[in-house]
């Protein structure tokens, strides 16, 4: 089985999408010669030229607007925000224009764009280069939000996101770029709006996103050794959220732990918990549904502080164990 890194998988998805459809173009800072801040667009300038791999000035509102404008003109732009944090400069174009235009104009336009947001902490990049903003976008009707946790999903979901006729926020994680996994050569799609059940289990449902999926799976392994059988589900698409497998799982396990890196307060975990407790799973709950998430602090730079701010493997094990043992 062929293995690729998450970075290479994304790169291959872009190549295949661009090969197949001349309307797919890339817009962003340093995506040409430099190959993107994280190397995702390496080689694309040589292959597709400056007409389709468009290096921009440092103008994030301009980049976002260029993507929206190109999208309503029939192109399928893939924007590169370099770091997720910089979308704070493009929120107006993304949210007030890109996400709303179709409704405001009663369906006269489609806005098929993908905005790639390399996010997350763990690299010592400090408070302005480590953000996880996915729940802001989950809160915006008109957007879709995708967050792949593996090389396989990175490729399949990116291809599906580019196919989609709506603005899709594509949340990558910096620490995942070097992770490797099986990635088929063909241009397969993983449909948006379908959760992935990574592992079946009877005792506890662990919903995790992005970087937290691998840690959750490791935690599940360790807990299996302690006789605790953990089911791990990755929504992959946060909006629209495929909640059915989560609800079904909680009906079986009676216990829910949601883990994400973004800070807890006001985060996506609240959405998952609220949906589950409002569902038929409510009657099956054996313990309070819990969240484990980033501490409520801007991400610090140094290693010890950063690690203390972000959920770690041992934190997941601890919380899952407690929950499974009714110690909460």
């Amino acid at each position, binding site marked *: 089985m062929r293995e690729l890194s998450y970075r290479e998988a994304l790169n291959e998805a872009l190549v295949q999408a661009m090969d197949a459809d001349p309307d797919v*173009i890339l*817009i962003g800072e340093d995506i040409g010669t430099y190959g993107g801040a994280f190397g995702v667009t390496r080689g694309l300038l040589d292959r597709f030229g400056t*007409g*389709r791999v*468009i290096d*921009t*000035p440092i*103008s994030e*509102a*301009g980049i*976002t*607007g*260029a*993507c*929206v*404008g*190109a*999208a*309503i*003109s*029939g*192109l399928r*732009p893939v924007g590169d925000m370099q770091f997720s944090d910089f979308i704070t400069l493009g929120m*107006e*174009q993304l949210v*007030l*224009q890109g996400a709303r*235009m*179709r*409704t*405001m*104009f*009663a*369906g*006269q*336009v*489609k*806005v*098929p764009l993908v905005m790639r947001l390399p996010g997350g902490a763990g690299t010592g990049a400090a408070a302005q280069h480590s953000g996880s903003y996915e729940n802001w976008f989950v809160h915006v*009707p*008109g957007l*879709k939000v995708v967050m792949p946790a593996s090389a396989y999903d990175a490729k399949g979901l990116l291809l599906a996101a580019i196919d989609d*006729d*709506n603005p899709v926020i594509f949340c990558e994680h910096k620490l995942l770029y070097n992770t490797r996994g099986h990635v088929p050569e063909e241009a397969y799609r993983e449909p948006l709006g379908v959760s992935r059940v990574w592992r079946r289990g009877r005792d506890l449902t662990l919903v995790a996103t992005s970087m937290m999926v691998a840690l959750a799976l490791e935690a599940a392994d360790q807990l299996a050794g302690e006789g605790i059988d953990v089911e791990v589900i990755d929504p992959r698409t946060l909006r629209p959220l495929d909640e059915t497998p989560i609800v079904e799982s909680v009906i079986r396990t009676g216990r829910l732990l949601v883990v994400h890196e973004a800070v807890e307060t006001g985060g996506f975990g609240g959405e998952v918990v609220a949906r589950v407790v409002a569902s038929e799973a409510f009657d099956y709950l054996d313990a309070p549904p819990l969240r484990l998430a980033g501490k409520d602090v801007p991400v610090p730079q140094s290693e010890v502080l950063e690690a203390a701010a972000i959920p770690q493997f041992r934190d997941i094990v601890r919380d899952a164990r407690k929950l499974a043992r009714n110690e909460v």
Partner: protein
Amino acid sequence: MQNAARESLPQCQALKVLGPAGLKASLASMLLIRAFEERVDQLYLAGRTRGTLHLSIGQEATNVGALHALRAGDRFFSHHRGHGHALAWTDDPRRAMADILGKSGGFCEGFGGTMHMADVKSGFLGGNGIVAGGLPLSTGVGLAIQLRAEDAVCLVLFGDGAANEGALHEALNMASIWQLPVIYICENNSYAMSTPVNRSINVETISSRATAYGFPGFTIDGNDFLEVFDCVHAAASRARKGGGPTLVEALTYRIKGHSRSDRQAYRSREEVRRWQEPDRDPLLRLEATLLHAGIVDEEELSAMRLRASDRVDDAVAWAEAAPAPDPSGLLDHVYA
């Protein structure tokens, strides 16, 4: 500002491009906008509109001059004060009125209202509630036109106040380095809400900003239809040939208050009155020019005025008869 064009009509590009019939159509469009906006103002005062309202009265020469200088295949973005643009482009007061009254059958079917009319198929890419919101969008449209080597331009309208948004800077710079076929029309109507333009910028002209990006900028008499048309037409021709963007600052004046809530404490009635005199009012000026050139006579003019008012009557009746939007369609357009 004098009516210089009046004497120089024969030299005008507008006459060559539009011909006498076209010029009359442009005047008719301006008359329609004026009549439409005056009616909308009455409807507001009678409590029959909802939400905000920004009227184009006084700015008709820029509205029509800029848009009639385009041709089929071109695109444009309007802004919050966009009834005039919608009418100049679509000549469809019924749909515009339906939007304003929140009815079905308009451009945006009760979703958008006054600030969000759009007729995308025809190239009218919509109004905007966000000051300068159309500027970054026009970059993308310009890019698309360029990448597909289309023989088209994208025009984007914005106000003097919008010129102070960061979006302007990013858009103008990108258009310049990529030589995009985009025409920027700043409708400098002397105020942004309560802020006179000289309190928000510290240079003589907004058009001079173009030079900081390396492309041409012009400040013109925005109440002179012919000057607006010619300037925009020339900019469009240049852009079609790969000559890149142009910034046009059209000096004009907003006759009505900024919006519903405006008490207009920031200006004098006298100032407003001066802009309504025959040497400044854009309608009176184009009428005088066309009369002088023998393109219309007084009788025809009266008929045109009557027709504008009739069409507005019809639009109101039509829109009032139109059904309200059906709430069951609330979620129909959120996703494609």
